[in-house]
């Protein structure tokens, strides 16, 4: 039997429109959220924290992350985390992907923005100007909170999109190169196919067939977007899932191997190739 980490869906704790802008203080006072936030949990929506004050921390994937004054932290969906009990202040934006991605352009943004590719990113402001922008956008978004009005929701959406873009700009500094629209939508389709089929289908040609492009073309586009080949990208996805299961479930190694569609021997071999340790050692070292 496994002890499951609870996964909360956006529907149950997030505002039905898929967006909330609240301060830490308000968050602590919301009963439905309080019950969840101080325990290990994961949720199906994104967080954007803006920390104010010196003594701030957050537990992400079992690690205590210390955060400095004025830092911005983007937390991806489905990442296991836990709030720390401290006197930290700040603002939080909670949003679902369905809220932000109402147009193709914004879906493309989600699929190519580097923030959405890692478990979490900390953005340290390098200039006064950036802090000024954070201030302006957050106060703007706090003012526009009548979610029953469509135009106010649109304003919130535009502001959130801008906030993420300036955060992305601040943390990458290098210019992100956009491909053509064709490769955008292909990558996003590839990602969703992968989510659905990675357990049973591990060959690039399956995905290329589904997407109706040649294997070569798919790999080219993946290399351009992520810097690794399509095959490596698929393996990476499986490896991350394996690590997740090892760390947070009580499944045996054999069950985990089964779960991701390998036999046990191959699973151990696969894992060693990616991590230089065996699954058993990885689990022990935590």
């Amino acid at each position: 039997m496994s002890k499951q980490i609870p996964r909360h869906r956006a529907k149950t704790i997030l505002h039905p429109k898929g967006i909330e802008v609240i301060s830490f203080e308000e968050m602590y006072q919301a009963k439905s959220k309080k019950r969840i936030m101080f325990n290990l949990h994961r949720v199906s929506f994104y967080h954007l924290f803006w920390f104010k004050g010196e003594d701030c921390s957050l537990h992400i994937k079992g690690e205590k992350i210390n955060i400095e004054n004025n830092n911005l932290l983007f937390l991806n969906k489905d990442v296991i985390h836990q709030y720390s009990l401290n006197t930290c202040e700040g603002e939080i934006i909670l949003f679902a992907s369905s809220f932000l991605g109402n147009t193709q352009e914004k879906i493309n943004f989600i699929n190519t923005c580097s923030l959405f590719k890692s478990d979490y990113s900390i953005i340290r402001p390098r200039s006064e100007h950036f802090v000024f922008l954070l201030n302006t956008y957050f106060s703007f978004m706090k003012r526009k909170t009548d979610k029953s009005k469509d135009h106010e929701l649109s304003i919130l959406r535009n502001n959130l999109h801008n906030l993420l873009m300036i955060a992305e700009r601040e943390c990458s500094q290098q210019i992100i190169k956009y491909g053509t629209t064709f490769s955008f939508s292909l990558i996003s389709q590839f990602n969703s196919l992968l989510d659905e089929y990675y357990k049973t289908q591990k060959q690039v040609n399956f995905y290329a067939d589904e997407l109706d492009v040649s294997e070569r073309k798919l790999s080219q586009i993946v290399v351009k977007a992520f810097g690794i080949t399509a095959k490596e990208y698929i393996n990476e996805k499986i490896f991350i899932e394996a690590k997740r299961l090892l760390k947070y479930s009580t499944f045996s190694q054999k069950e985990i191997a089964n779960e991701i569609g390998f036999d046990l021997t191959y699973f151990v071999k696969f894992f060693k190739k990616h991590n230089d340790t065996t699954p058993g050692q990885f689990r022990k070292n935590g």
Partner: protein
Amino acid sequence: MENKNNMGFWTFPMENPEYYHLHRMQENQASLFYILWIQEIHSPLSPEITELLHIRPDAILLVDAYLIPFFFSLNLKGQLIVFSESFCRTKENMDLLKLVFFHCHDEGVVEIDTLNESQHECLHLMEMEYNAPYDSFQPAILLNLLSNFLLLTTSYTYYDEQLMQSHFLDYALQFENLVDKYALTEKKIPFYAFQIGITEKTLVKSLQLIFNTSPKAIIKNRIIFLTRRMVVFSEKSITQIAHEAGFDVSYFVKFFFQATGMSPKAFREKYAALFNV
């Protein structure tokens, strides 16, 4: 490759002569949209002008192309924001644009109601973003800010949420697009009702609800607007313009005089002179 100069968006201070370079660059300068944020007034203006044009510090004006040189001649301190229709990309943004700029088409200049600081904030953020180095995010950030500005502006004027989601809005915007295209050749209302596929009565009701005016008035104003543009920006003769608008010359001159208080020739001379500062 897209860059700052060809994304279809510009903003600069009123005291910057770059404006004139921009105008020489633009082949179709008349079809750009202008938002003017007045910050300071240096030299005192005559009372007639202030009464007519709502020029006061902190006012946000929507201005039609032909009046822009006139504003430059007033020695104002302020920010000018210019963008093309194609910059707006999505249908939602285009619709917003049509709603906000509707009355600007008729009157040449409209002061917009500002309820709080948010609209100023949007314009200020646009200015800052535009002055930052160009990258692939810049057009999207500017467009979001512009869209927010338009949304805030419509929310004060057209606050009725139910009306905004009704089919009346759709009809009114369809009419608006058709008038843009056909005003000079088709002056009869049944033509437009037929094109949209609704009765004349529904058309009248839609326009009354959304724009608070009649189809007849819109068509007439659009003819004034389009001929005014041609008089200022094209090199066509007045006779030619009259024919294109479907009038004989003497009627056109009378019509134009009624609307602008000036004959086409005098109008052309006045505004052409302003352009060649």
